[in-house]
């Protein structure tokens, strides 16, 4: 695959060329917060932020999305019948996504792109999106990607990888999609020997800067019901206030709700992010609730990511080690500590 380089001063020109062929999404700073936004030629992306507060999951699974629309107009042939909605599936690029977030999309493919059912919106968005990753020279103190199968410069799940080597970005195409994008940028400068060396140095130094590591080696060996009944859940859940911020910021929390909304005679069927932290998430019509207690909900979130997912797909944990939940939790529940407890569990 091809390697190129671009001077930082020429990056805007590169983005402008991409804007001719793609809708471009990149981290943009608004006020104190950097989030992934669709950019225009006037926007200046912010590549200094290692982890955006929100993961870019909303670009694949919008926080709220119309699935169908319908009319309730009496006498209409279509009254009460769901209709598919046309959406923009033109090519787009997520520019500057971190390797962990790109990896989260691959994990979510296991849930949304299945046999026999394929989630049509997820699958189409994945198909028409090119992921240009930005390696993490300085991982955050809460990052632990190397413990969960990733790394600050992991290529898996990316189409193209950028490395910030000071005055320039090195570009490394990883997939055919990445090659195509690279061609469209028109960049023709091969990386110099010094740049190539700097890229290697960045990768090596980033690994050295990783401050947390947690063992996950025993998770798949444990008996799920024994782990489910472990005593430590009571301690883990004690401080939790069920606010749900962990599920909100998590790139691998995909649970959703489906609701209808009506205004006058027209309505839509919506899909909204949902959270296992809410008791309503599992409340039966009868009033029975299998996860009525906070402990049950907290346990479900960790067991799902760190045990059920591991057992169901045999592709490791459903966590990419981005550390967002660690940073955002108002009562300092730390998933790394929970992994440790689960991993070292003895019956």
């Amino acid at each position, binding site marked *: 695959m091809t390697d190129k380089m671009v001077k930082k001063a020429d990056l805007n020109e590169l983005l402008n060329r991409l804007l001719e062929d793609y809708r471009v999404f990149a981290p943009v700073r608004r006020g104190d917060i950097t989030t992934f936004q669709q950019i225009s030629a006037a926007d200046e992306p912010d590549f200094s932020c290692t982890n955006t507060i929100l993961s870019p999951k909303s670009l694949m699974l919008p926080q709220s999305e119309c*699935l*169908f629309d*319908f009319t*309730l107009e009496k006498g209409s042939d279509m*009254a*009460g*019948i*769901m209709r*598919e909605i046309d959406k923009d599936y033109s090519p787009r690029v997520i520019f500057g996504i971190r390797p962990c977030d790109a990896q989260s999309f691959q994990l979510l493919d296991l*849930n*949304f792109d*299945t046999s026999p*059912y*394929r*989630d*049509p919106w997820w*699958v*189409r968005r994945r198909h028409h999106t090119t992921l240009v990753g930005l390696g993490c020279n300085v991982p955050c103190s809460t990052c632990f990607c190397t413990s969960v199968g990733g790394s600050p410069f992991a290529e898996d799940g990316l189409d193209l990888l950028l490395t910030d080597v000071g005055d320039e970005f090195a570009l490394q195409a990883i997939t055919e999609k990445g090659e195509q994008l690279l061609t469209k940028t028109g960049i023709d400068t091969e990386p110099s020997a010094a740049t190539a060396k700097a890229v290697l140095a960045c990768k090596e130094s980033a690994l050295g800067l990783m401050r947390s590591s947690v063992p996950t080696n025993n998770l798949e060996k444990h008996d*799920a*019901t024994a782990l*489910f*009944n472990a005593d430590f859940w009571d301690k883990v859940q004690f401080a939790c206030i069920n606010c749900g911020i962990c599920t909100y910021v998590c790139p691998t929390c*995909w*649970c*959703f*709700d*489906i*609701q*209808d909304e*009506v205004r006058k005679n027209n*309505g839509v*069927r919506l899909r909204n992010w*949902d959270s*296992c932290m809410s008791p309503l*998430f*599992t*409340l*039966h*019509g*009868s009033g*029975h609730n*299998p*996860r009525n207690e906070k402990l*049950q909900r907290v346990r*479900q979130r960790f*067991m*799902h990511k760190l045990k*059920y997912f591991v*057992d*169901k797909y045999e592709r490791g944990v459903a966590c990419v080690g981005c550390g967002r939940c660690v940073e955002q939790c108002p009562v300092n529940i730390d998933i790394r500590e929970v992994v440790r407890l689960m991993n070292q569990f003895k019956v």
Partner: protein
Amino acid sequence: MENPYLPYPVRIDSVITETEDRNLKTFKLVFLNSEDSEKFVHRAGQFAELSIAGKGEIPIGIASSPTEQGHLLFTVNKVGLVTSALHQMAVGEVMGVRGPLGNWYPWEEMDGKNVVIIGGGFAFTTLRASIVYMLHPENRSRFGDVTVIYGARTPGMLLYKDELAAWDERDDIRMHITVDASDDPDWKYNVGFVPTITQEKAPSAEDAYAIVCGPPIMIKFTLPILSELGFPPERIIMSLEMRMKCGIGMCGRCNIGTEYVCNDGPVFSLDQLGQLPNEY
């Protein structure tokens, strides 16, 4: 790409009020498009999402047998937003059906075996589908003895009363209909809770499968009796309920451990459930 969230449009063909409290109605639904009807091929034990535009969707067991062609039956208890709206709907109105969803009773395994069906209250819907399926002339010879134990609180709370009476007249199915209590002097069937009647009638476990559907309290007291009668856990079959949205294993709420009740279930053997966390 097929959109698994898009319901098939159907028309309400008839509505039958099943119970004396008028809280349970059976809806007969007919597909608006014949090609949808051809695509909807189900097995007894599966469910579907009923969709009412503007209200939402609910997962409901399919009460009609695959052998009953051209329509679907759903018996719905009035509980929440969608079921209440459905109970208000009239013949001729259009709604949606999405499915069939989930797995089914283990018909392949049960081939050539005796089948004991134990049901309580309004959880008799997919059991009705199963009975109609087994009694169909093409299928009856594939099964040994068919025994049914079905109970409700009162005679007026039994579902499918005409069919129960008709099955009771047949000699190729053993019916044990029961009620918790009755002040009807003409009541000619059993009086007693389902577990008690199960113990009394003691269906043989030899070469037999038991399919059990009912309220949690009935299941709790029936399972030990089935064990006493010699039914091993892998031949006690149950169908679970959960709050669901997508019905296709994606929205994440109906799991018991690794298993999504919508997609990996709703049918599980007691043996399978014994290996999962006790959270349902």
